[in-house]
Each structure stands twice: as C-alpha cells, then as structure tokens.
C-alpha cells in the first residue's frame, strides 16, 4: 500500500528557500509567477492490507518524525 505525504511550512513561517527559488525563477524571466513555496515530499510504502490502519500509521509517522508541527503542516494521500 502506497501513500504520498507532503510537508509544507505553515503560512506564517518564513520560507527562505521558496523565496530564493522565486527570485531566481523571476530573474529567469518567469514574470507571471505569483508565489512559490517549497516543502518536502515522501513516498511511503507499507506492508499493510487495511487502508485505514495504514493511513493511521502514516499519520503517526508524520506526527512523530516527518513534520515539525511547530512550523509545518502535512497532508497524507493514498496513491
């Protein structure tokens, strides 16, 4: 069973990386770019059969390690 997880910085947290990427893209001539924010992406494969249980586990992983909830939000998707 496979899941994808995206971890993004909360709205009110400065995203230095996104900002630099944005500036670079703009200086490369991408002038219609309004905003870009950068986060992390994980592809997780579990040996489970029960989708609900599995999703719960992935959620656990996010809380315990993958995201720092002080500054980051996360989303889990089954793929």
């Amino acid at each position, binding site marked *: 069973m496979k899941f994808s997880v995206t971890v993004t910085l909360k709205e*009110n*947290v*400065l995203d*230095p*990386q996104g900002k*630099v990427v944005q500036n670079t893209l703009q200086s490369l001539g991408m002038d219609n770019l309004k905003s870009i924010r950068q986060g*992390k992406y994980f592809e997780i494969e579990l040996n489970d059969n029960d989708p609900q249980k599995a999703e719960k586990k992935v959620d656990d992983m996010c809380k*315990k*390690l*993958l995201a*720092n909830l*002080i*500054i980051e939000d996360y989303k889990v998707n089954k793929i």
Partner: protein
Amino acid sequence: MNSSVIVFPGSNCDRDIAVALEKMQFKNQMVWHKETKLPKSDLIVIPGGFSYGDYLRSGAIAGKSLIINEVIKSANDGCLVLGICNGFQILTETGLLKGVLLRNKKLKFINEDVNIKVINNDTKFSNKYKKNQVLKINIAHNEGNYFTNSDHLKELNNENLIAFKYCNESGDINQSSNPNGSLENIAGIFNSKKNILGMMPHPERMVDNLISNTDGVNLFSSLLN
C-alpha cells in the same frame, strides 16, 4: 565539574568540545547515543556537526534517539545543558528549547567569524562576560536562521532569555550584522529556567590564541564559577 558530551552518528565537533572542556579542567566523558544511561554530570553538551547527516531536518533524527530521553529528564531536573550549533537544532527538535532553526536566508552554508553581543550575563553560562560585551566567534551552519512565534518572542524579550545576538564590531545590532536572517539577530537563547542554552556560534573554537582567539573561554569559566 563533570561534563558529558553526547555523540551522535554524524556529530563532528565532539572532539573539539571535549578538548575545550578538558582544557578548562572539566572532567569530561563522551556518551554514545545508543547508551541508555547518562553518567553523573553537572553539564551535558550536545555538540555541533551533522547528526544523521542533517537529513530530513537538522536535529530531527537525533531528537528521537534513545539517549535524548535521558537528556530531557536531566534537563527537567535542572542539569545544565549546552547545545552548540547542531546541538541547538537538536534541542529545539526535542522541545527543550522553543522555536526552530530555518535555512540561512541566502541558502548558503556560512563559515565566518562573526560578532555577537552578550545580552544576558546573569546566568550560569555567561556570568563571566560583561553585559553587552562584544565577542568574535566562529559560526558554521546551514540552518541558523532562528524563528519562533510572536508570543514566545515576547517571552524571550520580557524574561531576558536571549543569550546572544549577532552584531557588528561596535556592537550595533542590525540587518547588515545578521549573517543568517535570524529573528531579531538572535544567536543563542535560554529556556525559561535558564539551565539550558542553545547557540549557533561555536565557543569551543575560540579557546586557543594560536588557532583563533579566546572569546569562548569565559563561557566555560562561567560554568565553573
């Protein structure tokens, strides 16, 4: 004074801090991260480096290690804890210190001698410094851009929990003396009980005139005081 230096896979300033502590007459022990008990210590140091390669987020994985539970217990019992650079990042990941260290503003690793100002000299870690004294200390990090929420920032200011701020040679704290974009030029903070200090600059690199200067010495002698 007894000190313990925690060694994670990927720590790389562990020897440096041990040398500095021994030079300052601490009785030091190295503690491997897989151990489950800490030796009796008055000071626990989490050294700089790239624990677990800084993969995922700097400090995140070390923050989940076995030994860290012992560190948290000791810290809650009032033991002195010093986190330098990656150690600071680890302390924020464990929640012993609030806030986070984001990527440097310019997204580049920075190794430089910078000036920092002693903001609070009335603590176990800083009593040998003068208030507002300007030190020259080496920094070396990719994620030193300190960030916290506005409530905590207020608390830091109101309760005098800021240890050091980046400044220029004459002590001015402004954007041009901020190497990494950190909030209010913060270079190091205490927890509310002031028994934990996290700082990005490396005091252990500043204890030998032949190599650099001795501006770090007083941090260690404050602890012995």
